[in-house]
């Protein structure tokens, strides 16, 4: 096993990896930007190295600087977390070239799976179901018309180079096809520097179901079951759970085998996630593969008892997978809510600022993976995800009530968070029944109305607060119990003895 690892990330995922290092007795180092001098991951790591100014392009995305720090700190491996450089072929290659182990797949697999067209073709050839569509890139209008004739409307135009909804267009009739194509190409060019697009059948109300896999460097592959991630807003996952309510043991076997095959044919190693779309008739289609640790990996950890980050480190150090497919069992139900610094009552506008108060939920069946602490100034420069709240219970129903209880305990002040949104979902009958798909938030939840029941209390408290606050203003300095200076010139001797 490694003696020292550099964690080249920030926030909750950096802390997650650093915790695994501590439990494995591996020395850890991490990097920080100007905005993260007092970040939780900076507090947590064994060693900390300054990267540069706050913008990611000047800090967390600086490949050369990170490689240099890895060498300086004598780290033998780099864990990239997710985001930033996690799926960057160039970075993986730079690690390989500098004799540093990249905790993730080999650079060729990243490259192949980062290209949506090439990876779709690879999977299709291996007999894994893919969504019907163009064979490869669509460059001209004529070609687009031929494709839609074959597969029928509605169709989805997608960019080969990236994700996150950019360069994507749903087209429902012939007259909008050419225009949407041009828009998508322009968007893809500016977002990914690559205008290549392709077309596939648009699935109306699919569910998003993904399989966690582990693959060692010796050809052994297992899957850890599925996660359902259909609660999405603008292609961003907000809530994930396992098992999926639509899953049967047979379907899990089939999809799991397809996931394992996807890993094998792409010569993939380390942890990864194979994403599928599933339609109403439970037909499943390969969507893409995420070549990194996922935000939602703890859902699977709660269900299987397997520590995925530790497995990543073991695999990266060359160990043979100790798990066989038959060892892996799924137990109970787990849900994750992504806690983000966004104001759900203002259309999820970013809400940064200083964390004035932080009380995290606890007790039975609750796990919090946090990236913040009280007093931390949530920076404007990075992803709004500040923490993940997870629960486990023997049943899905038990997990939902537990999540409701835990969300209500979560107290974050100073910024707005997505907590009220999650509370709403947990109490929505469709979610409770498991009757939801990727259109849930936009179509079913509709206009979000936050329930309020404490108008009278708000009125009374406002006045009480006003009175106390104006009293404070009148007597600023003297407070009861003002703390004595902790300093005296001479130390005192112990004057207490236990009787």
């Amino acid at each position: 096993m490694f003696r020292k690892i550099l964690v080249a990330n920030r926030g909750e995922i950096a802390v997650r990896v650093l915790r695994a290092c501590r439990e494995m007795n591996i020395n850890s180092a991490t990097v920080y930007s100007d905005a993260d001098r007092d970040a939780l991951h900076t507090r947590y790591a064994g060693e900390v190295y300054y990267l540069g100014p706050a913008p990611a392009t000047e800090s967390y995305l600086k490949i050369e600087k990170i490689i240099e720090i890895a060498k300086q700190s004598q780290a033998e491996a780099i864990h990239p977390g997710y985001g930033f450089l996690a799926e960057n072929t160039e970075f993986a290659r730079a690690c390989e070239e500098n004799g540093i182990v990249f905790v993730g797949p080999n650079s060729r697999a990243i490259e192949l799976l980062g290209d949506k067209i090439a990876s779709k073709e690879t999977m299709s050839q291996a007999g894994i179901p893919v969504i019907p569509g163009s064979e490869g890139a669509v460059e001209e209008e004529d070609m687009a018309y031929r494709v839609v004739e074959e597969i029928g409307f509605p169709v989805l135009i997608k960019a080969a180079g990236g994700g996150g909804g950019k360069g994507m267009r749903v087209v429902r009739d012939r007259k909008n096809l050419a225009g949407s194509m041009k828009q998508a190409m322009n968007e893809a060019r500016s977002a990914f520097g690559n205008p290549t697009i392709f077309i596939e059948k648009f699935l109306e109300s699919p569910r998003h179901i993904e399989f966690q896999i582990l693959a060692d460097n010796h050809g052994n592959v297992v899957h850890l079951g599925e996660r359902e991630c259909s609660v999405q807003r603008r292609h961003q996952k907000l809530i994930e759970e396992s098992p999926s309510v639509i899953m049967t043991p047979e379907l899990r076997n089939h999809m799991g085998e397809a996931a394992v095959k996807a890993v094998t044919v792409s010569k993939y190693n380390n942890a990864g996630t194979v994403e599928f779309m599933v339609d109403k008739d439970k037909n499943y289609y390969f969507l893409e593969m995420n070549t990194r640790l996922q935000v939602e990996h703890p859902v699977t950890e709660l269900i299987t008892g397997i520590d995925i980050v530790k497995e990543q480190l073991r695999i990266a150090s060359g160990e043979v997978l100790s798990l066989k497919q038959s060892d892996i069992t799924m137990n109970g139900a787990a849900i994750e809510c992504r806690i983000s610094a966004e104001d759900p009552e203002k259309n999820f506008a970013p809400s940064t600022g200083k964390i004035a108060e932080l009380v995290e939920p606890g007790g039975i069946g609750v796990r919090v993976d946090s990236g913040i602490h009280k007093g931390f100034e949530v920076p404007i420069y990075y992803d709004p995800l500040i923490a993940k709240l997870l629960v486990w219970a023997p049943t899905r129903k038990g997990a939902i009530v537990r999540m409701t209880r835990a969300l209500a305990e979560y107290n974050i002040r100073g910024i707005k968070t997505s907590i009220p949104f999650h509370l709403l979902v947990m109490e929505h009958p469709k979610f409770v029944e498991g009757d939801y798909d990727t259109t849930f938030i936009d179509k079913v939840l509709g206009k979000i109305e936050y329930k309020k029941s404490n108008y009278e209390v708000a009125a009374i408290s406002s006045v009480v607060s006003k009175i106390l606050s104006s009293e404070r203003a009148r007597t600023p300095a003297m407070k009861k119990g003002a703390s004595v200076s902790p300093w005296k010139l001479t130390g005192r001797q112990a004057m207490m003895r236990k009787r």
Partner: protein
Amino acid sequence: MAYVVKVDNKEFKVDIERSGNSFIVFLDGEKTNVEVTHEEGSQLMLIIGNRSYAIAMEADDQIVVNGETYSVEVVDEEIQRFLKASPDKLQKKELAIKGVMPGLVIEVNVEEGDTVKKEDGLLIVEAMKMQNEMKAPRDGVVKKVLIKKGQTVNSGDTLVIIT
């Protein structure tokens, strides 16, 4: 002491009297006991009747009660009467447009001296890769622009002053 409190546009009359850490409150005439069990900054714990509440004052005019956010406006009853008598007293005052979130100013659309209409865009602030436009809350003239393009601003900073 009597106050008029507007909570999300519902109006309440709160008559309040202090005794130590407790208050006796008449809410629209109904009596309740309020006990302050904890006070730290703008955060309070109250026991009202037989229930306990976590209270936080946020961003000038917002209160959070057990996680639910309400916009509130507390007006001394006498001032309220005065305001009602001359409703445009307030409108004519200088109005400071303040940042409601930290971010980077990526566009400034007004200069000092410009006339603006209600809902006109004044400037755009970016944070976490999302852009937000600050708009004029009423008609007026731009008296002062306190920020520049490229500048980082904090929540609560005065950005533009309108008269």
